[in-house]
């Protein structure tokens, strides 16, 4: 019996439908999008800087920023009116489904490169919306989710302290002391490492410290587990992290609020099961 013969008989529509192809919109140039147009700066050198971020061109970003700094443009303005605007545009396209994760990562790299350059001139860290500490649970080597979280936080204008993976509990607690973060994100991919989360909360409480919320997410982590201890909120998608941080920052939401209003805060349906 020949495989090709089978294949030629099939109407795929009764077996598998590639909905992604079906729903795809037309290709456009990034800056043709109306919302992007509205968010991009019109005056130079900010427009070029923003565009180099939008075009995910790390080298161009660096060069443009260096040139602007040489021209005595205040570094704060370069960051806020150039680099961040470019990143805003990237976020717009990501949310619309025109840009994808690699675009964000690369644009983020370009933005970070530019910011570092500005900070050299500033002589200190630039102002951000606030500090978030991100870590992978002790004993856990899986770090891609965390890397994404860090990237999304940075793209959203937060300072994300990346503590890496397999981070001992005491180091996390020390980071709370050191940074007094607005928000914390923990990632664990295994049943046997997510147990670090309640231990961390416990230590934090013992030391009399507090964090508005610790977002706990990653492969094996379950909402019911996360909600079995205080100070925590179950994190679903990496790009939810800045939205959660934003809600804490702007609307003074607590971890209890975040649990209750998660879906509204992140602005999309999230499967619930308890």
């Amino acid at each position, binding site marked *: 019996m020949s495989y090709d013969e*089978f294949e030629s008989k*099939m109407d795929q529509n009764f077996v598998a439908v590639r909905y992604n192809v079906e729903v795809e919109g037309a290709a456009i140039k990034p800056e043709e999008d109306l919302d992007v147009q509205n968010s991009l700066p019109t005056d130079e050198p900010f427009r070029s800087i923003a565009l180099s971020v939008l075009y995910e061109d790390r080298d161009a970003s660096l060069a443009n920023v260096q040139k602007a700094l040489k021209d005595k443009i205040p570094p704060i303005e370069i960051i806020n009116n150039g680099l961040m605007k470019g990143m805003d545009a990237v976020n717009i396209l990501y949310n619309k489904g025109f840009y994808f994760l690699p675009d964000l990562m690369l644009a983020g790299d370009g933005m970070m490169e530019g910011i570092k350059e500005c900070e050299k001139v500033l002589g200190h860290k630039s102002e951000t919306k606030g500090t978030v500490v991100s870590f992978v649970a002790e004993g856990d080597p899986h770090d891609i989710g965390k890397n994404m979280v860090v990237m999304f936080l940075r793209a959203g204008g937060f300072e994300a302290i990346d503590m890496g993976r397999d981070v001992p509990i005491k180091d996390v607690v020390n980071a709370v002391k050191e940074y007094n973060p607005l928000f914390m994100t923990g990632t664990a991919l295994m049943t046997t490492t997510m147990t670090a989360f309640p231990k961390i909360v416990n230590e934090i409480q013992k030391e009399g410290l507090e964090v508005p919320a610790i977002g706990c997410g990653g492969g094996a982590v379950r909402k019911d587990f996360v909600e079995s201890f205080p100070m925590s909120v179950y994190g679903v998608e990496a790009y939810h992290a800045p939205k959660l941080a934003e809600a804490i920052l702007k609307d003074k939401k607590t971890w209890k609020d975040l649990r209750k209003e998660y879906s509204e805060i992140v602005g999309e349906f999230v499967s619930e099961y308890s």
Partner: protein
Amino acid sequence: MKRFTKMVYKDSDDMVFGHAKFPVSQHWNTQIGAGYVVPEIKVAPVEGSEETKEGMVSECRNITQSACERAVSIGLPAFMVEQEHIFQQTNNPDWTAECTQVQSETLEKYYDEYDIRVSLLATPADIRIEERDGLRGSDYDNKIMESVEASAANGASCVAIETIGGKSVSDYGIARGDPKAILFGIGVLGSIDMEYMWKRIVDVCRKYDCRPAGDTDCAQANTAMFLAGGLLDKDCSHTLAALARAMAGARSLVAVECGAIGPLKDCGYENPIIKAISGVPIATEGKNAVCAHSDLMGNLSAAVTDVWSNESVYHREEMGGTTPEVWLQATGYEAALMNTAIQTGQEKILRDLYTLTDKYRDPQALVLAYDNAYRIGEAIVKYGKDPYLRARAAALEAGAIINEAVESKKMYLTRFERDSLDHALNIFEALPTESEQFTDDCIRKYSRKISEFDPKSYEL
């Protein structure tokens, strides 16, 4: 009421998954038994959601939405959501209305956006309790019909139910290995009660764009099957469970005779018999229902299915997603395999592989292999007009099928299975050929022994 006295299928070999003699059309562009198998997903509401209407509505929304998301994410062409109502939903028809509405709205959204074929099966609970106000005309009885109507009026594609008539007697018989009680409970009482229920359900459905789907002998044959358990269990003999299943074929057929058009409900393992007789499409469950229970025919039960179900699973999170996502993917991928077989013209081979995988795993599987199911169907229609005689004939035929397989050394029985089969067949053979005489006998015998049993519930 029309009774089946002839087989709609003329040859067991004509039966195959995804095809029914009489396909069913539903809204949202779904056809059942029309050349493709539809995967089904069913999720039990989480503990606590029964406390308030809001809780239950939110469960229903979440289950449905999760299923929709996964379906488009993996490219399923079609799927069905079944919601089995809990007591509170049926007892409060306004809960049913709101739950059904939110589910049908959600499904419709995806249908509109992706052109995906979707379907919603609502299964109100049979909340009647024989020993409390009987089976007829009680408050509970009325609530069931209101709940059926609330489902039909709020967008359900079809309605099913698991009626419980005769259960008090069959339960007694199953736990005690009493074949006569089982025959009376399933064949006589079950059939009488189904007629009472289904005439009304069909009338209600016909008022709306909602199909009367089907019933299942969950209350009786499945109880036997679950008590029978695995190969090493010792609660109920597997041969007796096989006979109970055959009788269930005669009983569950009544829904169709009253106007149900399918898909017959998933947990009716007797459905292949009824499909053979009547040509209606059926839902079945097997190897993708391991979340709910362990049967001994996980593949075989797919052989002639039209809707492939996971039975039921806790609503919670797996590493691979929430359970509506995970288990729809499970049934969805199996349905995709069957649909590939149909598209390539290999459906009969896959059907036969499914069947042979389990045919000799257990006597319960053996009698449901589609060729044997067909034989049992023939035995039923031969006595089609008499619910008692046809159930008895079904049991005798199932016994004959098992014995033939044993003689040809394909099926091996344990002593327990052997003894209880012989015992049951002896009893069945010696029974009166008059329904009335049998019924009178049984009423006398079992009213005394079974306190819940009330002949008035069956107008006897």
